[in-house]
């Protein structure tokens, strides 16, 4: 499993280092990376194993929305994350 993981990580770096992809392929790679990251965000936040955490999902979603809005307005990911953390903490305590 480690070897397969290393293969997925190393092969593109070894063979494409320094190469500029045509603009359209570069864009596709960007979209694939963003889509995978957003999927990770979603599954990390809302799921535990194969189960959706329905009781916690609404306030985590609210905290995520607030974090995103704050990050966008302040142009600071850390500020957004800190506000989101504080909110999720407060909401989980109020539950």
């Amino acid at each position, binding site marked *: *499993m480690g070897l397969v*993981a290393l293969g997925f990580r190393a092969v593109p770096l070894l063979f494409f280092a320094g190469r500029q992809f045509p603009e359209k392929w570069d864009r596709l790679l960007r*979209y*694939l990376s963003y889509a995978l990251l957003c999927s990770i*965000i979603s599954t990390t936040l809302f799921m535990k*194993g*194969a189960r959706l955490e329905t009781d916690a999902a609404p306030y985590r979603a609210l905290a995520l929305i607030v974090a995103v809005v704050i*990050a966008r307005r302040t142009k600071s990911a850390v500020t957004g994350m800190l506000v989101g*953390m504080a909110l999720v903490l407060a909401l989980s305590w109020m539950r």
Partner: protein
Amino acid sequence: MKAAIPIWIAFVPSSIAWGIAAQDHGLTLEEIVLMSAWVYSGPAQFAVLGPLAENKSALQVLVAGSLMNLRFLPMSTALAPYFSGVQRLPLLFSSQVVSASSFIVPYLQFQKEQVSDIPRAGANGHGNLAFFLGVGATAYSIWVIGTAVGFGVALGFPSGFDEALRFILPGYFAGLLVVEMKSWAMALVCGASLVAAVPGALASQGWGWLITAIVIAISVWGVEEWKFRASKLS
């Protein structure tokens, strides 16, 4: 390095949690440290604990872990153009620390520099690799050490604080993405993936979220390409 601090903070509880879970599933300290160092992938490591504890076949364990690790392929491919002039051996060693966290921070930084008029000092292939390793190698070390600590230490966080710690990484990733969001297509890719990942994962825990992400990215890209071609023809 400053940009990596939230990743370090987030890695501490998650690595300790994995160490505890792995011990609970019967892995030894050596197996835990070796797996963390060699596989270095939180989702994949969590995914294989069940099959390992149930003595499932090596092939099943391999498939479960590899599905989770497929995401490294586009991430490494997207990073590769920024390491121009770096020799293969340093790249091979550096590739081990590619993760979602060590990808997103440098990648967004490199992109920002590409469109900015003021480049970072040493912003060439080697400089970029050093920046990448500053984020990736430190996060990697914290992950490996944290899983070893988790073997011996039970999580002592009050239950309410678990929620806040769990929010760090997704909250930071989302913030990084939204700060750099410039086009409708990127917003659509991110929004749709965020919404569709959970139903996808519910349909199939291993494949679902991965397939939905790939389908969404390719669909938006396809529509954009089609619009671009149509505008060129008219």
